[in-house]
């Protein structure tokens, strides 16, 4: 289902309302829902007829059109910026021509919309970064980006839910577990949330990391 051909918060709200409805009221035969920026992909099991599913969806569209979007939740994500926790912050300094403290200040001033989770488990697609912080991806990706790394790629910012390879520029790290594979529906960061980053000290980082068992 293609709702639009651009990235916008209005389209995201429509998609989010529809997806919330589809998750709460599952359609027979629909086995997976893949949200994108401006579309939703539904996948069906072997026994389900596409035509039948489309007819059911048309009715749901009519119902959802008039329903209120789900409540918006603001999630605060503590981040220890720079140093060993954000090894590429100097690259952002180089491309943005801003000082390290200005970068941190601008990065935590933003309110970011979680457009959807996708790509890999729990990875949030965040929108709304200050475009002055734009920094191209690293030419050679790192083999190991630590869990919780906060990073910049092009005009986007993101958080790595798990340790994995990655080519984004690391600017900091959160001590919180943003996604828990044993309780995936209740991750810290969910589709439709707003996210704000908050700079913390190394002591606070260690304290939070310990109390969260991450």
């Amino acid at each position, binding site marked *: 289902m293609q709702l639009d051909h651009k990235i916008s918060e209005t389209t995201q709200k429509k998609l989010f309302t529809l997806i919330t409805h589809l998750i709460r009221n599952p359609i027979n035969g629909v086995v997976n829902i893949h949200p*994108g*920026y401006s579309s939703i992909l539904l996948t069906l099991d*072997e026994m389900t007829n596409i035509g039948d599913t489309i007819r059911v969806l048309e009715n749901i569209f009519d119902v959802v059109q008039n329903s209120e979007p789900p409540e918006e939740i603001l999630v605060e994500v503590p981040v220890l910026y720079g140093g060993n926790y954000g090894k590429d912050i100097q690259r952002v300094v180089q491309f943005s021509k801003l000082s390290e403290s200005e970068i941190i200040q601008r990065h935590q001033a933003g309110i970011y919309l979680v457009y959807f989770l996708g790509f890999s488990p729990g990875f949030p697609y965040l929108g709304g970064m200050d475009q002055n912080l734009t920094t191209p991806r690293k030419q050679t990706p790192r083999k190991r980006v630590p869990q919780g790394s906060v990073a910049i790629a092009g005009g986007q910012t993101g958080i790595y839910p798990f340790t994995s390879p990655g080519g984004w520029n690391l600017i900091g790290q959160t001590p919180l577990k943003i996604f828990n594979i044993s309780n*995936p529906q209740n*991750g810290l960061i969910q589709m439709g949330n707003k996210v704000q980053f908050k700079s913390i000290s190394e002591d606070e980082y260690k304290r939070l990391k310990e109390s969260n068992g991450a």
Partner: protein
Amino acid sequence: MGLEILRAGLQSTVQDKGRFGYAHLGISASGAADKFSLRIGNMLVGNPNQSACIEMTIIGDKYRFKSDAYIALTGSEFEAALDNKPIPFWQGWSIKKGQILDVRSTKTGARCYLCVAGGINVEGVMGAKTTHLTSGIGGCHGRILKILDELDFGTLDNSINPLQKLNESITADNKTIRVTKGIQWLWFHKKQINKFFQQQYRVTDLSNRMGLRLIGNAINTKKESEIITAGIPLGAIQIPGDGQPIISFVEHQTTGGYTIIANVISADFRKVGQLKPGDYFQFELTSFSKAEKLKVDQEKFIHSLHHD
């Protein structure tokens, strides 16, 4: 009730039909690469459809059975022996405690399945036992099987009668993979589309359960090759900037930004699961209605096996 791995193959994992319902959290379904072979394997040992098995890739494992068992090997035929005597594929077989099953190299396609009555019993993650290697979840600690791993079987549900051996050969020809038009089909000129269907593609070494990377003459889009990030289904054929197709497979990313020229039809997923690096094949265009019919026919065929 269980078995022990005496020698691990190239990439053996615990698999079932897949973990559904979590794509909106970034978790693709995974599951057996050739679910057709897994389903028939489960039928041959009297398991329900959702039972888990061991999927072996190119080179199989060597197992010691710690208890009596009833097994079936399905999928592509591999060199396989039970206490040094060849063991047939596509039929149920009784195993005595202490016997050794040695599955060596493939004779044909990429994967074979070891199904055991009662199913491979590992802890479920989000309602499924399938291993998702790229996410490190499910199966045996989210990883491939290693020497000295031990796996338990579940208890057999006696209400299901095992299928007798198959009367017909059910190996598929992997030389042609049928597809329907993809969502960005119109982003390609006719000439590029013709090139896509007229050439032989080779499966490269960079192929795995996440995706099969192919090589041929490059295909170009009319303008840009990237789209606004959107959902990717199993079997989507993406064309990145270098013009070499990637077939998204069982552990695919849930979303992506490359154009989708075509989609493999459901009835041919089993063939994709049997392609291995170095294989050549060609794509063939099919209509949506034909694809739907082929899917229904495949389902009918599987159901008919119970009534032979």
